[in-house]
């Protein structure tokens, strides 16, 4: 009860601030919190990264293993993305089967990688219809202070960009870099009254009136979108957010690839 009251007072305050273009942590409407990545953080993985956006921290590990292709795509590799919102990362998560929240994060990150064609799946095929590389992208949230989708997407792109195809371990020739061909990243916005802020903090997510995530690639395409939480966006909102997403996306791509 007291938690609910606190949350409501905080929410009201966040919305009032937003009315004059201000945010609780002093950022501007279109500012991210500090962003950083550390590629190779989890060395048992074939590619990995620790990504931080403000106080949010996410580790992504990429593992590559031989497996069977799907019957309807015999010449293509298999991509599997999973996000774990473990209870270590926030008091709101409980042990047990994945919460719809975790499933949504998994699927939205997956959608950007898959629709954005980050990996050349055709190059993962070993023997058509028989054997292919399976690429597991596991996103492990360790500190949830808001905007898990962007942090997870950044960690995943960084991990993929730095990943090695471990052919030698499976007697399939020499190791080589994983064939990354596109660089999709997610940019997430939240509506706070009439203002729409980028990179919502956890408090802003709880107070917001709708969330919109837009994944862009380096070639000027929107490759995935997801509207989430209670709230609404007009077509004009969305068009203008797409422009903002391209700008933020370009910066994130540089951070992910170390360019």
């Amino acid at each position: 009860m007291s938690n609910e009251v606190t949350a409501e007072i905080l929410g009201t305050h966040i919305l009032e601030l937003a009315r004059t273009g201000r945010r609780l942590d002093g950022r501007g409407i279109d500012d991210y919190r500090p962003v950083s990545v550390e590629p190779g953080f989890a060395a048992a993985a074939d590619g990995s990264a620790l990504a931080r956006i403000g106080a949010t921290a996410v580790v992504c590990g990429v593992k590559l293993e031989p497996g069977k292709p799907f019957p309807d795509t015999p010449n293509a590799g298999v991509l599997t993305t999973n996000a774990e919102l473990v209870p270590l990362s926030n008091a709101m998560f409980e042990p047990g089967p994945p919460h719809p929240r975790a499933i949504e994060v998994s699927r939205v990150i997956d959608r950007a990688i898959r629709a954005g064609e980050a990996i050349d799946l055709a190059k993962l095929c070993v023997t058509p219809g028989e054997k292919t590389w399976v690429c597991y992208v596991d996103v492990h949230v360790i500190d949830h202070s808001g905007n898990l989708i962007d942090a997870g997407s950044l960690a995943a792109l960084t991990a993929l960009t730095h990943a090695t195809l471990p052919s030698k371990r499976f007697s399939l020739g020499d190791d080589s870099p994983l064939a990354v061909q596109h660089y999709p990243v997610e940019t997430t916005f939240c509506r706070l009254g009439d203002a729409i802020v980028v990179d919502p903090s956890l408090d802003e997510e709880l107070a917001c009136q709708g969330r919109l995530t837009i994944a862009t690639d380096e070639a000027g395409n929107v490759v995935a979108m997801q509207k989430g939480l209670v709230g609404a966006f007009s077509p004009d909102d969305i068009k203008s957010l797409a422009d903002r997403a391209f700008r933020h996306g370009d910066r994130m791509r540089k951070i992910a690839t170390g360019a």
Partner: protein
Amino acid sequence: MGSVGAKEVPVLLSPDGKRIDGRRLDELRPLKIVAGALHQADGSAFVEWGANKVMAAVYGPREVHPRHLQQNNKAIVQCKYNMAAFSVDERKRPGLDRRSQEISKVISEAFESVIFVEEYPRTSIDIYIEVLQANAGTRCAGVVAASVALADAGIPMVDLLPSVAVGKIGGAIALDLKKEEDNFGEADMPMALVPQSGRLVLLQMEGHMTAEELGRSLDLGVQGCRSIYEVMKQALRDRYQVGGGAAQEVGA
């Protein structure tokens, strides 16, 4: 979306701009809605939309299960979207998969955006969507059915929620993709509109679109939703003229 390594890509658009089923780019598939299609539910609707068959039922406002989800200041909205095992080409194992759970979440949030939830504190409004036959656009058909079912149950809402997917096929923006268009097209974008405000409460997208194409797609989708809105209102009008006998019409 185009699948890497899939056998062969059919021609989705003829030289004169006609689609594989003869539709224009901005043309909807045939849509038929029966409000009040079930006897047990507090509200229900059956939607036949192209080759989709989707049933929706609403129960509530009622006691919350499990109890700890109860909210003191509002009703919770819980949607479960489910596909029957036989609704798709390759049999689907019964039970909620990750796709169904994601769809259930975004639909729950879409409806919570328009239902006057603060009028029913400590209750649950439960929406069940069962896909009996699937041919692309089932989540949109589900939103349309659920929307009419909510109205049939007398749940107060800002507005009905028409819903449709817009996509990109053969380089062109097209309304209401069917299965082959969804499988082999370049982009798919389901959405749901609040007609009163002109805002979207459900929006997902995957594929490739430039900013300009995205803009056109949004406009086409809004236009499609407005057409669907009329069919939805007519279904509700029919419901109250025909009376309780509507249930017999399903599948007839």
